[in-house]
């Protein structure tokens, strides 16, 4: 059959449609003082406390170490954890299902909902970078692209894993429990606070395959030319980046599958 009656103005672009919902989400985020404080102030305080903990960062300069830790903490505590609670809260309030009845696709609704969290993540990392420059600890990165790949890949992976986590998270409060294994494992065994070389060898090798580890490795490689074992890179950083890039790509594929399978749009009956 013909569908002549279906001719309608093309309407706004896909990006502008997502932006419409994303800016409403951002407005909501700003109006929610608790979320704002939790997501912005707490991680910043945490990062500022890091030097006092006197953690062994290998040979990485202090500024670079701070930046790696800031990105890692932001990704896990803000991007991942905040998004699990946001997605679950929106689902339990039946908002997600409502948003999905319109012209936006499911993925577009998920992206729009994630937008404020992602924006704050990027803003926070930028703020720390500016801070590092301000306290005179900035050293020119060995490679600029790798840290950016790490940041973007890390954000996308956290969004995917957060979406997947909602599948077994019944309430926004229970995200504190369902998100915990990932938070502990990825902060504890990613080389974020100490090089993986301090771990028993087998454990260190295994830890390289955890989701956050390749992000940390790529950051350290790009910012300081330092390998996962804490040594200076011998030769090209991109050659050394092959393994973490492959692992990150693998996690992005797995994360996509898990998010598609696990994401629940409506509360369970």
């Amino acid at each position: 059959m013909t569908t002549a009656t279906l001719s309608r103005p093309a309407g706004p672009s896909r990006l502008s449609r997502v932006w419409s919902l994303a800016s409403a989400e951002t407005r909501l985020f700003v109006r929610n003082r608790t979320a704002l404080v939790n997501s912005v102030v707490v991680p910043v305080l945490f990062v500022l406390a890091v030097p006092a903990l006197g953690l062994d960062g290998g040979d990485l300069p202090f500024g670079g170490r701070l930046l790696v830790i800031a990105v890692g903490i932001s990704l896990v505590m803000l991007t991942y954890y905040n998004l699990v609670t946001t997605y679950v809260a929106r689902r339990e309030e039946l908002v997600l299902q409502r948003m999905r009845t319109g012209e936006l696709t499911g993925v577009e609704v998920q992206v729009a909902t994630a937008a404020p969290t992602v924006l704050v993540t990027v803003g926070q990392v930028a703020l720390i970078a500016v801070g590092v420059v301000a306290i005179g600890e900035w050293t020119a990165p060995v490679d600029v692209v790798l840290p950016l790949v790490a940041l973007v890949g890390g954000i996308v992976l956290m969004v995917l894993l957060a979406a997947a986590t909602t599948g077994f998270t019944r309430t926004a409060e229970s995200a504190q429990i369902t998100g915990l294994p990932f938070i502990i494992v990825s902060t504890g065994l990613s080389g974020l606070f100490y090089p993986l070389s301090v771990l028993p060898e087998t454990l260190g090798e295994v830890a390289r395959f955890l989701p956050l580890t390749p992000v940390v490795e790529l950051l350290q490689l790009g910012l300081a030319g330092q390998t996962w074992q804490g040594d200076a890179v011998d030769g090209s950083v991109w050659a050394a980046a092959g393994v973490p890039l492959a692992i990150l790509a693998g996690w992005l594929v797995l994360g996509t599958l898990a998010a598609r399978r696990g994401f629940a749009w409506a509360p369970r009956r």
Partner: protein
Amino acid sequence: MQPATAAPSTDTATTPAVEVHDLRRSYGDFEAVRGISFEVRRGEVLALLGVNGAGKTSALEVLEGLAPAGGGTVRVLGLDPVRDRARVRRELGVLLQTSGLPGDLTVAETLRAWAGTLSDPRPVEEALAQVSLTGRADVRVRALSGGERRRLDLAMALLGRPSVVVLDEPTTGLDPESRRQVWELVQGLVADGAAVLLTTHHLEEAEELADRVAVMRAGQVVLSGTQAEIAETQPATVRFALDAGDPRPPVPAEVQVVEDGHRVEWRTRALQPVLAQLLAWAAEHGVVLRTLAARAGSLEQAFLAVADGTHPSLMEENR
């Protein structure tokens, strides 16, 4: 760019806006929708009636594109709601039975954000006026009453100027005045040529709005047709009371009698001759039929008969 009001081509004008054929849907072992079929044409309201759990919402979710069909086909304007999602959604307005909106946006902000996601939204002011929320535009959704929230939800459903509108229990929780207003809104949509599919368990609502009705029970459509056709599936009733000493009227062949003391109820499919006979008899014998009432079969009667399981699918036998 083509104008939005392009004249409909003849074949789209005659194809039903919604076609559901042998639709099935299961949750695990439980089959919630068991092979239902119906159509909704342009400029028409079809009411899907049924008690809670009859499968109405499960069926709607498929044509809203929110859930895949377990079997059968669903077409909206000739298109598959899942495969042709983008084109279907541009034409479809959906009001879910229960849905939420973020509490910290104002009414106007909510509508503006939603309008930004649509191809051809009506102006926000117009949408506000449509559901009488103009004066509440700057109020946060959190502070709205249940009825106001439902009306905002309805305004969102209609914001994209849909030609096919699916309303799942649109007036549940509304006060009588708001309900009346929603009815007028729906009648306006239909007058403009929209196809409306709504579910309800208010019979009054179906009577007021529906051109055709489909009654569901346990995942099946057990009755469907115009209100008159459905009412006709039910016998007419004649009720009266007799005094103790009165003679008993002769019972015509086509009448089923239910007696409760002095009160008599006759059920018949031939109301007029049966009533004429009864009145003639009463006149002849000088009997006063106290509290005499004669009533044709009604939609309500049919609905109740279906709900308590005493009604088989008569309409299907008639076809």
